[in-house]
């Protein structure tokens, strides 16, 4: 939806220029990919020498190491590491909670997703776009090429407000797709009514490496900064419409903060335990600065 995440705003030249210095590296990408720059387990044509192997008929004669044959009298061929692409799957939350408030979380989320996509496409990796709320939609299948950035951006800008957050279900569904193993970037506030445990359980079953972009606001951790959140209030859930009557006092506030902290701790614990990346992206802050903090020395290893 162009009005929500303005297409022009996504194509901010300064923002894109600043991202050109960043690189996303995978330790190893899964085989059967396209030729690209990421290290892979596949051996074959490439530039990086990997090993020798005895010659068998059919091997490329150009790979025979004649020096070894002269010394040992046996024919060996040089084996090279194949560099392939990393498939990156962007799973973007388009539930109502992402579109609420004066500076909605979706703005920062789309900008971060677009930035990551530009980095990925710039290094010849492929990017796919998935949007979810209570359903999972495939917006763009994983494709590569810098010229795909325009298409990707348009699709992002067209994401509009949907329904409830069903992140656990979406991850389940995505895991069930026969996708090449890659990097799954989840852009969401993680406010799944099923609870953080259900989300974590779903992510554990996912074969992809994970990069979690948790979109937050200051009032999430400290409701006291919200001018209306004090005294006797009826809180309406923007997605389900459920009402919760609260008398906000010091005790209730402290208890809320404890629970919210536990929620964050659970997400961070999962990320640490499973080697996933976790970025808490403040929706009210500058996205570029927060991404810069993520790419230490301009490089992010996943």
């Amino acid at each position: 939806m162009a009005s929500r995440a303005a297409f022009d705003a996504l194509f901010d030249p300064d923002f894109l220029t600043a991202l050109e210095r960043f690189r996303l590296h995978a330790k190893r990408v899964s085989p059967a990919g396209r030729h690209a720059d990421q290290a892979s387990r596949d051996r074959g044509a490439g530039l990086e020498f990997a090993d020798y192997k005895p010659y068998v008929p059919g091997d490329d004669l150009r790979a025979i190491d004649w020096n070894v044959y002269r010394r040992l009298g046996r024919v060996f061929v040089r084996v090279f590491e194949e560099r392939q692409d990393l498939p990156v799957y962007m799973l973007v939350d388009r539930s109502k909670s992402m579109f609420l408030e004066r500076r909605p979380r979706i703005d920062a989320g789309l900008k971060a997703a677009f930035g990551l996509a530009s980095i990925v496409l710039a290094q010849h990796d492929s990017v796919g776009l998935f949007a979810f709320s209570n359903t999972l939609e495939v917006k763009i299948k994983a494709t590569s090429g810098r010229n795909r950035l325009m298409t990707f951006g348009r699709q992002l800008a067209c994401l509009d407000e949907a329904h409830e957050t069903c992140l656990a279900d979406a991850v389940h569904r995505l895991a069930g797709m026969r996708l090449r193993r890659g990097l799954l970037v989840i852009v969401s506030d993680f406010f799944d009514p099923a609870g953080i445990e259900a989300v974590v359980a779903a992510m554990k079953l996912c074969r992809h490496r994970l990069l979690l972009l948790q979109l937050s606001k200051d009032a999430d951790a400290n409701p006291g900064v919200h001018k209306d959140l004090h005294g006797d209030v009826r809180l309406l859930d923007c997605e389900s419409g459920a009402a919760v009557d609260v008398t906000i006092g010091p005790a209730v506030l402290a208890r809320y903060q404890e629970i919210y902290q536990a929620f964050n701790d659970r997400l961070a614990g999962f990320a640490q335990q499973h080697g996933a990346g976790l970025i808490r992206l403040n929706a009210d802050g500058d996205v570029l600065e927060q991404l810069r903090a993520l790419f230490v020395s301009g490089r992010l290893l996943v």
Partner: protein
Amino acid sequence: MSFLNLGLPAVLAGLAGLAGILFVLQQLRVRHAAITVPTTLFWAAAVREAPVRVFRRRFRHWLAYLLALLICALLWIGFAGPEVDRQGGAEHTVLFLDGSAHTSDPADFERAKRELVNDVAGLSPGSREVLFGGAHTLKLLDPGEDRLLLEKRLASLAPEASPSRLDEQLRLMTRNGAYPETVRVVVYGRAPVGDRTLAELPAGFSVSRAVGYAPAAVNHGITALGVGPAASGAWDRVDVQIGITSSGGSSVAADGLPIGDLQIGIGGRDTGDAVLTRVSADRFVLRDVLADGATLEVRIDVADKLPLDNVARLTLPERSRVRVAVAGGVGSAIASTVDSTIGSTVDATIDSAIHNAIRADKGLELVAEDADDADVIVRLASDTRPIDRPAITLRPMADQDTAFEIAYVGERDTRQVLEASVARLGLDQIDAMALASAVDRPIGVAVFEGAERQVSIWSELLQPNYNFVHSRSFPLFLSKSLRWLAGEQAWYAYLAAGRTVTEQSARSSLGPADDGALETLGADYLPARAGTVTVDGDADWQVSLLSEAVSGLSAGAAVETSALGTAVGVPLTGLVPWLILAALLLFGIEWYLYQRGLMP
């Protein structure tokens, strides 16, 4: 049980109101402001451990409600000021503190106040009241009022130079129906109770005296101070009569006050050539005092029981002669209307009647026809000279509808002026029937407002054949009319506290009463205390005590002397601190239970 600050119905209504309010508060839930948030996930979990207040819910917490109600009830009852009436009976007690001249001895008054304060402390507040009888009766303490207010109110009170108001108050109490059937009146001070008053008290009323006073020592008091025309005949002088009452011993009463102990001053100076003489043991006369409107003060220079009756003051009349100018030709003009053969005789008769009447009155002075300082003129209507002063005008019957027409100055009610003028001008002394028969026309009086005072009469009435100028009423009419026209000030023979002044003036023939002062004072005016009365903002009149009952140390009718003594009823205002303490204790318990989560 009764309450100091509130009546029983108010206390019960307050308790019911508190119970209702607390009941509603128990059921009320607060109104929530609706706010949309990204998720209620965390709030729902937080609220599970801290239940929210709700606007209305089922009434469940009876014990908590009763505890709150008990606390509020204790505070409310404490505010109402409970007290237990140990007196038992329904008798109403009226404590009357005498502040009249009877109790003007400082020692007597202080003792009466002390006894009063002591007795009030022992009475149930709901069934007692305190009155102060000075120049006016004041209510010092209403039933139910806190007795602590009494001492503050008593502090500014002192005896006043006035007669006792006890009898009047007793009569009022029995008549106004505001008191119960059984009333006990306790008198503090020396105010006497009249025999007749005591005899007329209803069956339920009783009067007693709180303190028995010993017979008083010697007392002298001025009981009469008045003025009258000087026996010497001098118009501008008056004789002052002084009455002294002595009591406290047979020899003192018989001999009276030595004349040397009587000090007299007039306007701050001595009496001049006026001579004070004793006419009897208790009467003195000061003769030939100049009637110049000064204040005469009589003082007894002896220390005695009552100080307030040792001084009396009197405003002397201001008697100046009225200068009258009679226009020439009055007699001849009237005579011209009758038979010419007797004209000269008639002329002389009329002139001489007018002049004789003026000369006979020492308060009047005949001046030349054209004298500038004439106060009043007698003139003919045909006189073309402008009228610049009050006048008696003689007008032919043909030109005037009514026999007597009176013009007055100022905005006043015409009917009042008419009624007053008949007596003031001596018209009531005229044989109007005879005159009416003679002239064959009704004799009437008309009044109207004018620029100058004026009396117009038919000139024909002065003809000898009507017998008006020869009647005894003619000089009176002429004299009074001239004085009224000259605006002579009213004066009073005496002014005494507690005695009306109107009858004295109306009956007095000492001088004409001007229509200003007396009516300002009012027909029923009764000076309550000795002192200065200011009339119309500028005329001051001195009022004296002049009471035989006070100066004679009258004990009045014999009434029982019975001290109320110590508390016959004990107000338990001391309950209040205990009630507040109990409420605080319950507050503490409630707080403890709340903190422990044992109550909502």
